[in-house]
């Protein structure tokens, strides 16, 4: 044998962070961040437009519009980049060279996930700054700062959505995964209605179905603070803490299931 004990390998933390940084680099080189240009143009244009049109409510409208657009742009990246995150590597066979190295499938999934979260973080920060500047431009004052509570919640929502996308893509095609994730995004934002709906249903099996759906689907309406933010409200520490905890637990469960499925996959 040539050189026993020559290589010991990197730590799990090092491997995950290396994969995450490469995933971020991929997003940058594949021009995922280009959407920011569109977003900034959109916000600037609407700020100018609103400034000329309405009096008194411009800042509030910018908050509503800006946070809404941030959610749409962010969800778009979460869903489309999220579902291709792992499937692209399988399809292009780049995964062969990865798993012939001392890298576990779990480390790979977590690294890819965190890499996309990093991409989203940069996106959300830049878009948030854009909205803040637009608010200042129309004389919104302190709103430019208070919206950041809502932005923090919005980011957590995107982190959950990304975990949903990666889970679906671990067992279904990218197109189907994107569709399913989109449904979860829509329904997840209306979970309260889902629960109310369950109450109005007579049949117990139907009621059970909607109850189960309510528990399984992520409660994304929890993270919607747009209207309050427009009125200058800040989320309470309890709300932020609860939202953070819920997101961590939910993401933890989804990633665990994803890894369990992924560990059994054959890369043909």
């Amino acid at each position, binding site marked *: 044998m*040539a050189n026993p004990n020559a*290589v010991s390998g990197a730590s799990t933390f090092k491997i995950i962070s290396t994969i995450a940084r490469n995933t971020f*680099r991929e997003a940058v080189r594949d021009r995922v961040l280009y959407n920011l240009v569109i977003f900034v143009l959109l916000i600037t244009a609407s700020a100018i437009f609103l400034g000329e049109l309405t009096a008194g409510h411009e800042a509030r409208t910018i908050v509503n519009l800006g946070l809404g657009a941030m959610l749409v742009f962010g969800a778009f990246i979460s869903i489309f980049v999220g579902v291709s995150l792992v499937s692209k590597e399988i399809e292009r066979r780049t995964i*062969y*060279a990865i*798993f*012939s*190295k*001392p*890298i576990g499938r779990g480390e790979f999934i977590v690294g890819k996930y965190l890499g996309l979260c990093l991409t989203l973080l940069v996106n959300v920060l830049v878009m948030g700054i854009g909205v803040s500047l637009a608010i200042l431009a129309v004389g919104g004052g302190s709103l430019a700062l208070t919206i950041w509570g809502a932005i923090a919640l919005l980011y957590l929502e995107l982190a959950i959505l990304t975990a949903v996308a990666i889970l679906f893509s671990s067992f279904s095609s990218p197109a189907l995964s994107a569709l399913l994730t989109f449904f979860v995004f829509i329904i997840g934002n209306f979970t309260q209605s889902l629960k109310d709906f369950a109450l109005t249903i007579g049949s117990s099996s139907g009621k059970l179905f909607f109850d189960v759906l309510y528990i399984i689907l992520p409660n994304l309406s929890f993270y919607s603070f747009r209207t309050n933010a427009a009125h200058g409200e800040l989320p309470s520490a309890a709300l932020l803490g609860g939202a953070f905890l819920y997101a961590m637990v939910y993401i933890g469960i989804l990633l665990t299931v994803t890894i369990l499925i992924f560990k059994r996959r054959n890369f043909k």
Partner: protein
Amino acid sequence: MSYIIEIENLSKDYEVGFWKKKKVRALDDLTLNVEAGQIFGFLGGNGAGKTTTIKILMSLMFPTTGTARILGSDISDFKMHSRIGYCPENPYFYDYLKARELMNYFGELFGFDAAKRNRKTEELLTKVGLDEKDWNKQLRKFSKGMLQRVGLAQSLINEPEIVFLDEPMSGLDPIGRREIRELIAELREQGTTVFMSTHILSDIEALCDNVAILRGGKLAATGNLHELLTDSGEKQSFEITIKGGAAENLKDSIAGIAGAIFAAKPNGANINVLDENDIEKVLHATREAGGSLVSVQPVRQSLEEFFVKQTE
């Protein structure tokens, strides 16, 4: 004797069709052991199951039945991968990275510091003959042969004890093939075990100590290459080409050499002999008949015939 690769009753069924109900047996009860420090040739026709076996060994796929160990560890133990290397068939890598960045990334995954990553990158990219001007080019602009070279370079970044090469010569130009052949021979000198699949018989003859031949997913033959060929009765032969001389005179004197075959051609002849010692006899007779020597070549037919017989 302890083995560095131990494959026991390995089988693999691919599930095909819409409902994955139909099964195709790609590998059937393969048992094979490989000793350390050699170049092992893994042969077989298209679809024989070579890539399937290597992918199972790399834990990219799971066997339907059977087990295998590499360096004494079960193949499911991915930590053992720090001591092995793998170059896939028709390798493909992150096309948004430059060759240098890819090597650097893989080095990082092994936990090497920046200095070591740089050193290994430059050493290996040079060794596989990748032009220095291409080191900082994105891989999406690479040709098949260039990707193959990068694939070989990355498989050696951790100075592996065993390297698995799935058709390492595919896509390479003649010079590239020679360079990689030298690289593989050099690996053995350094004590690295090379497990490679290939279709190029001249490379096998030049490099391999032992071989295994697969046919339809089953092991058709395995053992020392030289012994396999001798045992199967396929003797090495030599082709002597001569010109001038009275061919008819020659024919008679050559008829006296056991196993020699004479074939006249315009202004000369081709003569086949089985024994190295017979070459001198033929040359002597040629000179006496007034002819002269053009060339003497060992005939590579033997492995090809053996291969055809084993795979048909």
